[in-house]
Each structure stands twice: as C-alpha cells, then as structure tokens.
C-alpha cells in the first residue's frame, strides 16, 4: 500500500489556511457544516482524509497524537495514520487517551472522559444527517437554514411504530446547541451521551464531501427522541471478558474456529489500563 500517496506529505500552507478558516467558522456556528475548498487530499477517500485534513491543519510540534479506529490503536487504518503524522510532522504519538492532545478517531469516542486541552477529530464518511431522507443538497441546506427537521422526526417515529424503538444503532442523529441537526459520524449510539457538554473541542472532517463541522466545549448535544420514547443507548449485557468492565462499549469477537465468542472492550487503551490496574491490585 505504499501507493497511498504518503509521499505527498503534509498539506501545503494555502490548503491549511483554508481549512483553518473553515474550522473557526465551524466553531462559531456549532453543528453547521462548513464546506472547504476543492483541493485534493493526499489519501484516497475511505482512509479518513477529512479527519487527516483537519488534524494536519491543527497539529503542531508540541502535540501528542493518538489515532483510533473502532476504539483500537492497533488496526491497520489507525497505525497508518499515526505513522503518516509521525513522518510528516515529527510529533510524538501515544496510545494513552489521557496523554494525547489530539485524538483522531473513526467510529468511537474513548471511554476515558476527555478534558480541556484535548481535541477530538472525527473522520466522517457522510456529514449530512438528512441524506438518506432527502438526497437533494439544496433541499437539505434549506432545511438546516430553517431548522426544519420534521423529516427526521417522522423517520424516527416510523421506526418506533414499526419496531417499538428507534432502529438506529450507529450514527444516531443529534441536535447541537438546540439548533443544528448533526451526524455524529458512525459512532455507536452508546457514545452519543459522551458528546454532550464535553470539555474537549470536537472537530469533524468529511473528505469526500469536503465539509467541516464542530462542537465547542460544554455545548449541548442531544440525541433526537420523543417524550414517550426517550433515547436509550444500548450496550451488550455482559462484562468485558478481559477487564470485567460493565460500563464500556463491547465488541463481540470470535475466539476460536469452533465459533466460540466473547465480549471485550472496543476501547483497547481503556481495557489494557484496567487489566494492568487489576494485576497490580492482586
């Protein structure tokens, strides 16, 4: 995979400046999608180009970068992005959530509560929360302008009528600052409550659609629901087989070729830290 275009290296200063301007406006209008210029990114889409563009525009020599994919630091995608930034910026990297100043993520929010001084950068495949319901971009822009989200409420209500609950387990739509409907990216709905009033700054980059959006610290992020059907984040009803956590989000993994399965934390740093603490306590 050396042909991924890593030799393009860092973004040029003009591109960074354009993305930086978009980021500041995104922070000023929480949850609103800001388009950024048409320049091509040095990676194929699907590899987190939007997140990479944001991280590359934000990162500096004093940062420590953590990259996770589905909660894990050691998957191919996470390792590639971490190596990419180590090579083109020389910054230190870490797998420890608490030590990172920038965390680029795909599909999860770390279990460890994030703090001020940290920036969480989400890789976003599709920034428009309404795109399955309304394919016309001009029409979705109009809906955001008017905060007219009836279409989404109808969809959720139909889910409840049909299934007795909202049948969305990933990318569950949220309302930011009581105003903008936003895609949280394909994180499990279980993670949605972590976005609400998070002390860290949350930045979202969509490479293919070339959109950036943001949630400032301590900003309300609510999952859409109904009074008689309140939002309920779901988690497998089991402890982690490795660290015993009953709070973390779990992945079901196949452990042998006979179909044996077990539940383990999807957040590898959280799980490893708990295992170490347990061993030290014994």
């Amino acid at each position, binding site marked *: 995979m050396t042909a991924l275009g890593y030799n393009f290296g860092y973004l040029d200063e003009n591109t960074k400046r354009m993305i930086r301007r978009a980021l*500041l406006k995104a*922070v000023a209008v929480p949850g609103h999608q800001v388009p950024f210029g048409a320049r091509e990114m040095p990676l194929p889409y699907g590899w987190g180009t939007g997140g990479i563009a944001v991280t590359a525009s934000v990162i500096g020599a004093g940062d420590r970068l953590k990259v996770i994919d589905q909660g894990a630091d050691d998957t191919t995608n996470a390792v590639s992005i971490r190596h990419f930034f180590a090579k083109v910026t020389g910054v230190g990297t870490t797998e420890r959530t608490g030590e990172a100043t920038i965390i680029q993520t795909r599909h999860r929010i770390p279990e460890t509560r994030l703090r001020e001084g940290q920036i969480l950068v989400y890789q976003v495949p599709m920034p428009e929360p309404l795109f399955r319901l309304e394919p016309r971009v001009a029409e979705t*822009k109009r809906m955001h302008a008017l905060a007219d989200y009836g279409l989404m409420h109808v969809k959720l209500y139909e889910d409840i009528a049909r299934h007795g609950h909202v049948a969305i387990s990933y990318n569950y739509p949220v309302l930011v600052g009581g105003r903008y409907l936003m895609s949280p990216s394909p994180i499990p709905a279980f993670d949605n409550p972590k976005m609400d009033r998070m002390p860290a*700054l949350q930045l979202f980059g969509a490479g293919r659609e070339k959109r950036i959006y943001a949630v*400032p610290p301590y900003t309300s992020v609510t999952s859409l629901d109904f009074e008689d059907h309140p939002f309920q984040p779901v988690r497998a009803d089991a402890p982690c087989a490795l660290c015993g956590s009953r709070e973390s989000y779990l992945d079901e993994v196949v452990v042998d070729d006979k179909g044996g399965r077990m539940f383990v934390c999807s957040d590898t740093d959280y799980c490893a830290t708990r295992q170490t603490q347990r061993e030290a306590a014994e």
Partner: protein
Amino acid sequence: MNGLTPGFADPVPDAQACFRALLEAMARPGRVERLAALPEAPAPLAPAAAAVLLTLADAETPVWTDAGPVAEDWLRFHAGCPLVAEPGLAGFLLATGGLPALAALEAGTEEEPHRSATLIVQVAGLELGGGWRLTGPGIEREHRLQVEGLPRGFLADWAANGARFPRGIDLVLCAGNRLAALPRTTRIEEAG
C-alpha cells in the same frame, strides 16, 4: 517593497501556533491567549492582530483596515491579501481606531452563515476576570473578561449581532501579544 518590517520569523510553525491560539480562543470565548511568535508589524498594528491576519488572510480573503497605508503595504506583501475600502466587502476587518458598524458587515446567509466576516479589533486592555460575564457554547458556567477601549453602545450592537443567529460576525480582540475571541454565539452581560 524595501523598508517593510518582517512577517513571521518561521512562517509554518508560527502560523500554526497562532491558529491554535485562535482556535482555543474561539472555542472558549473570553479566555485570553498569549502569542509567543509575533511578526514585526508596523505601527499602529498590534503584534497579535498582525499575527492573526498573517495566519488567516491570503489572496482569497479581502481585508479591510483603518490602519493606514504602511500597514496596508505590509499586509499586502506578507499576507498577499487584497485590501478593500468598503467594510461590507471584507472577509476580515482590522479596526485599530473606532469600530465599523457591525450591522454593515457581511453576516453570511441563513443557508451559509459561515460566509460571514471576522472582525479583529485592537483594544487598549484585555484581562481575564471582572468586567463582562460571558455565557454560551464553549463556556462551562461563565467566563469573565475585562475589555478596555470599545465604544459605548458596543454591547447593544453585539446583542443585535447575536439575535440574527446563525447569521452574524465573529470577533477577535487583540491587545499587544494577547487575543481573545467572541463567536456570534457568546452572550455578554455587564457585571458590575
């Protein structure tokens, strides 16, 4: 262009550091950020205000300023930005004397509220604590900020700016090597 004072000593890291301070300031309205790497901007430009424009302005962003011809030459040369005479046409504005009327600046549209101006204002003083009580996104409970040198009537204009959300301008306040930001979402109360 001989005779112009230098811009950033080390443009790539200096612009990055300035941007991070701006991002932090915009994300946590009223927090005062101190810039370490500053350009040698000509008077009357405050070093922080000059750094903000070097970081954000370029050929794609029309700039308006009241700072006079020496400052305009400096900005044209180091940022490469076009300068405009009409405040309403600018993407970035730098006010060193009075304030242009906020209502006359580009506020974006309901569909594209990001196409709005950012107004950089040089103020006489900028201190944490006292003065204003700030609330809104980015603020856990409240931030306190003391600003000196804004015209009387500013708070009413700011409230009017916030009332047209999501449209509206965003503000960066600069004094010496320090800056603080007020995105359009920040509510300000005078707290005695």
